[in-house]
């Protein structure tokens, strides 16, 4: 099914065309912000929210059926739990390796390189997955649930 042809759901074809072009760069920017969180401003939280906002743009432009084909709400909830578990298991691995909770056990590396700062990039990835999945799940929940009855 071509979502551009389905004119009934979502917004106008102008919004749909622009959204189709702009969603991949938004996701790419979110990934960049998560992976470079220990080098440049940003980090896991804003990166995850940016990636969630790309899927929210899909939901608003194409309707929630098309967006649910890309990422279902159960999958988003699963992503959130996975990210939280990644972050927590990194903290617990510190106890196993060195005896301290949240011990930065990986090698520090050379500053200003992408592979540096120990486990901070991994923690950023975990937080990004958690925040992105969680924000999209709560948006889908709020968008599906109708507080005001339809007239």
């Amino acid at each position, binding site marked *: 099914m071509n979502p551009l042809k389905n004119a009934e759901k979502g917004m106008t074809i102008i919004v749909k065309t622009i959204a189709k072009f702009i969603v991949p760069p938004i996701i790419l920017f979110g990934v960049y912000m998560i992976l470079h969180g220990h080098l440049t401003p940003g*980090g896991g939280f804003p990166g995850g929210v940016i990636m969630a906002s790309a899927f929210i743009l899909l939901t608003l432009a194409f309707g929630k059926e098309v967006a649910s084909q890309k990422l279902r709400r159960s999958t988003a909830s699963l992503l959130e739990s996975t990210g939280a578990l990644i972050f927590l298991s990194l903290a617990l691995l510190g106890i196993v390796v060195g005896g301290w909770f949240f011990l930065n056990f990986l090698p*520090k590396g050379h*500053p200003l390189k992408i592979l540096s700062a120990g486990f901070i990039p991994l*923690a950023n990835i975990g937080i990004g997955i958690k925040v992105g999945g969680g924000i999209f799940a709560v948006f889908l929940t709020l*968008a599906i649930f109708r507080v005001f009855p339809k007239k």
Partner: protein
Amino acid sequence: MWQVYALAILMIVGSLVAVHTRYLLSAVISLAVVGLALCVAFLYLQAPDCAITQIVVEVLALIILIRATGVERDMTEIKDKKEIFAYEAVGIFIIAFAFFAFRALSYLPEFGHPVMKVSQEYIRKGLEQTGSANLVTSVLLDFRAYDTLGEATVLFTAILGAIIVLREVGRKKK
């Protein structure tokens, strides 16, 4: 520095409009003005991490408030009479707060010149102890990682509660 004070005044005006306007949509837009002014204020105060997080969360909250909660359909005016007692109570509280806060505020350090010993230690040793070039990330995920874990738990619990309360599956049909 006058730009930050101008933005603070804009934020105060935006919050007052958000509280006192008669339309729900105007209140939401005024709230967005407050958030965007806060974002620009963060940029003037040289805090790009806070600015990025602020603008992303603000835009998302605006979308959720407008689209998901059905504000655009709820354009009914608020028809109640204005409460005189609320203004009096607010005035009395402001006077009392200013009276008691005057001496305490005069002892505060100058704006932008903190006297915090711990954070200076973080700034001096952040790069060599964590290897992270972004000092904010090194504080968030290394020095104060407990704080981030608690924050993640709070967000997880909030989203869990929203999904459970607003669920479709398993709800009793009326």
